[in-house]
């Protein structure tokens, strides 16, 4: 599965970057969403993808009997998903404020610090 994921993640990154290079601020937001999802998947998939072995210790045991999926990237990605949401909400509100104040949705018209 990993090689297929490598290609998928590459396409996700490309899509994210393409959207972030657009001049419309709304498209920038969509690019951000794509980027955070792509980054999360990258961390998750690079650690190796294991089928049907969640990192849980069975009841009454002290350690899993068989090899389980790597829990550390999962923990990292779990917080990353929530934080990406927090950052996304910050970004969209920023974009919205910028639009309300500058009155333009073209990033090229927002390049001066004093507008």
């Amino acid at each position, binding site marked *: 599965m990993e090689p297929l994921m490598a290609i998928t993640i590459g396409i996700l990154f490309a899509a994210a970057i393409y959207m972030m290079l657009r001049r419309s601020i709304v498209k920038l937001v969509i690019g951000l969403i794509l980027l955070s999802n792509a980054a999360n998947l990258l961390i998750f998939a690079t650690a190796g993808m294991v089928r049907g072995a*969640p990192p*849980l210790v069975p*009841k009454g045991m002290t350690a899993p009997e068989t090899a389980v999926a790597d829990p550390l990237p999962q923990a990292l990605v779990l917080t990353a998903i*929530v934080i990406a*949401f*927090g950052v996304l*909400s910050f970004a969209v*509100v920023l974009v919205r404020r910028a639009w309300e104040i500058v009155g333009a949705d073209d990033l090229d018209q927002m390049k001066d610090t004093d507008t």
Partner: protein
Amino acid sequence: MGRSGTLILNAAARLLLPLQLLFSVFLLLRGHDEPGGGFIAGLVASGAFALYLFSQGRHALGEMLKVSPRDLIGMGLLLGVISTLPGWWAGEPFFTAQWWTIPVIDFKASTPLIFDIGVYLVVVGSVLTAITALVDTDQAEHDPTDHDQTH
């Protein structure tokens, strides 16, 4: 944004909210042993409150919550920091987990649990702070008198 929901959504939200909150607490408490935990439980609770907000209106949510969502963030962070201290007092490095068993109900209390509750509160507080701030701004800008009509 006042009551925007239909009658069914309205009733459903009222009924669902306690169930959803109960479920979120369940997820929070079992999180140490099965899928769940502070982040997930916090997101479930945020979803529940958001649903309530859209069906019952901003004012109703404020009345029901009693506290400002920002205070939830503060409480959560405080719990997170406080949970680091018992280990220190016990003479171990800062943040070392401490476990106590409450005798009668055989419940395992621990600093990780306190910490997880902190995570829960921060997640709920943060999501609600953002959403309520957005709803308030919309009310102010697009429908200046709307909030007076909510109960």
